[in-house]
């Protein structure tokens, strides 16, 4: 376990101080939390700062297409049972944001770090983590991101020499491909509802066979590993076969899967699943996601869904009809500028819900829903959509910048 025996060098201290000053200036200028600009300034003064800050911590990295921010929060809560934790809880998940977060936790024992998929191999090299949690990989922002299988390949190469324990989802073939070059893997049967990025074998290209929950390649024998942890309904099954009930304030199957992976991570540090799961109950909303806010006399539940796999998991957790649903989609830089992915989402699952559509790309959504044979209303603003719905709960599903727009409007 890491101890705080080696103090930071004068250069690293200066870098941390300069970073904090830049962050304070950025905050004062009203430009967000300043964590990214602070990290950038600090890394410029001391390029090795991230590694130096991490030296003093037991580092846990979390990466995935979906669920990484939430899982980072769940792991951080669980590990607080064992000692102080520093974490990039706000989702600033590239090296500058990570550096800035770690610089703020000088007396922490654990560093629980969400990492953007593209940066995982580099951050793993810089921070020598004890554990890396890999949850899922699927298509996301293909206009600017690497191809999904290539990303799995890069993870596989980058992690092959790592001494970390890899906690990996056995139900996602791309994750298994990425993790299985590592000597020390804890397999978790966390499920993966979205299957359309793994029909061809990541190893040989053969057609994947997927009977029930199992999967294997009929040609090369690449197959689902036997998991030691599993999500089973509302329970986590630990490696001894004991079942621990999951009580979360966060909704949905995907968050139960995140809790299962988090319990497996916590166990590496000696936190028993019962203790870990009890602590996870504290997590209520993550950077506004899943928050329920009162707005114009209705209760809006804010749900973030950025890609087809995320939308699929989100549809499975919303209240049944006739609960109204508001959908908002943008295609700004942070969202990806191509809206083609809307056609990979099965909107027919919204049959029976009154549907209201907004966002920069509401017309793309309108055509998508028209072709799905759904009734919908196109609205200019959130207020207009909310006022058309009866009092009560409304499920609001939005992609990244659309979600930020909604949070600003409802004052969340």
């Amino acid at each position, binding site marked *: 376990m890491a101890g705080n025996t080696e103090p930071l060098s004068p250069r690293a201290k200066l870098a941390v101080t300069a970073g904090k000053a830049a962050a304070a200036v950025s905050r004062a200028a009203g430009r967000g939390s300043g964590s990214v600009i602070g990290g950038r300034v600090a890394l410029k003064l001391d390029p090795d700062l991230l590694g130096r800050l991490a030296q003093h911590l037991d580092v846990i990295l979390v990466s995935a297409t979906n669920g990484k921010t939430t899982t980072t929060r769940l792991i951080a809560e669980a590990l607080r049972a064992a000692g102080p934790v520093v974490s990039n809880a706000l989702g600033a998940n590239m090296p500058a944001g990570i550096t800035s977060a770690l610089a703020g936790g000088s007396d922490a024992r654990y560093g629980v770090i969400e990492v953007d998929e593209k940066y995982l191999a580099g951050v793993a090299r810089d921070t020598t983590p004890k554990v890396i949690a890999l949850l899922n990989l699927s298509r996301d922002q293909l*206009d600017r991101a690497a191809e999904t299988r290539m990303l799995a390949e890069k993870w596989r190469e980058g992690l092959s020499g790592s001494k970390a324990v890899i906690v990996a989802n056995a139900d996602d073939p791309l994750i298994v491909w990425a993790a299985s070059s590592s000597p020390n893997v804890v397999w978790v049967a966390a499920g993966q509802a979205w299957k*359309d990025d793994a029909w061809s074998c990541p190893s040989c290209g053969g*057609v994947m066979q997927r009977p029930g929950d199992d999967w294997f390649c009929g040609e090369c024998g690449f197959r689902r590993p036997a998991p030691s942890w599993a999500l089973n309904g509302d329970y986590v099954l630990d490696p001894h076969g004991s079942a621990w009930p999951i009580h979360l304030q966060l909704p949905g199957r995907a968050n139960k899967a995140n809790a299962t992976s988090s319990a497996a991570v916590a166990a590496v540090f000696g936190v028993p699943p019962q203790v870990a799961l009890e602590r996870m109950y504290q997590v209520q909303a993550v950077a506004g996601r899943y928050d329920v806010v009162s707005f114009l006399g209705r209760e809006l539940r804010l749900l973030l869904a950025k890609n087809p796999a995320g939308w699929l998991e989100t549809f499975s957790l919303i209240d049944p009809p006739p609960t109204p649903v508001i959908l908002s989609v943008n295609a700004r830089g942070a969202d990806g*500028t191509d809206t*083609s992915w809307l056609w990979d989402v099965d909107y027919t699952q919204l049959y029976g819900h009154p549907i209201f559509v907004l966002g920069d790309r509401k017309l793309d959504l309108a055509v998508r829903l028209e072709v799905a044979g759904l009734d919908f209303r196109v609205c200019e603003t959130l207020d207009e959509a909310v006022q058309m719905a009866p009092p009560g709960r409304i499920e609001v599903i939005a992609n990244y910048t659309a979600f930020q727009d909604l949070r600003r409007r409802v004052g969340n």
Partner: protein
Amino acid sequence: MNNSLRLVWVYPDLLSTYGDQGNALVVERRARQRGLDVSRVDVRSDQPIPTSGDIYLIGGGEDRPQRLAAERLRRDGGLSRAASNGAIIFSVCAGYQILGHEFINDLGEREPGLGLLDVVSTRGEGARCVGDVLGDIDPNLGLPPLTGFENHQGVTHLGPSARPLARVRLGRGNGTGDGTEGAYNDTVFGTYMHGPVLARNPLIADHLLKLALDVNALPPSDDRWYEALRAERIAAATQPA
């Protein structure tokens, strides 16, 4: 007119990465709205391609799946037989390249295609072509402007028996620098446009239906939302960002 339509979606396990499933959904929807009895078959790459389809749709995909799809389509032979029976084939991006004589595969090698379109594809030297596209469709087809989203590295050269599907006003299209985008002959169509392209250009979907049914006109449809989307995307493409 014949009241049934057999729609075949080729290899969704390999060539369905950029929402091109939407092309199948749009053709299916617009055919049903015209009272046709539509049967849609999704054929995985370990299954034989049926030869009795009326319209075949092939989407885009990543480099390795593209090579695997070409290998399996050549071995299967069903799509080529369907084409010689006069079936209508509409292909996008990676699928478009596969229908040509050859393309460059993920290993950097020349990979034979099916030769159903007189085109040859290579890999571009410059930056990837990514962004909104606006073009004018070949006047012989009598269709309104083409709108779509391109995301490819490929460059496609047309031979004498392929006609360019469109000329781009904005965007790169075939990437040859001559302003052409896509290619077609009597029954086989190829384009680099995602979007998906038939959701952005529903009258191309109708054109495929007319060819398949051998009719000159279809009952009218309510295209309000398609029209609104087209107007917005065409305006966005022509305005500076």
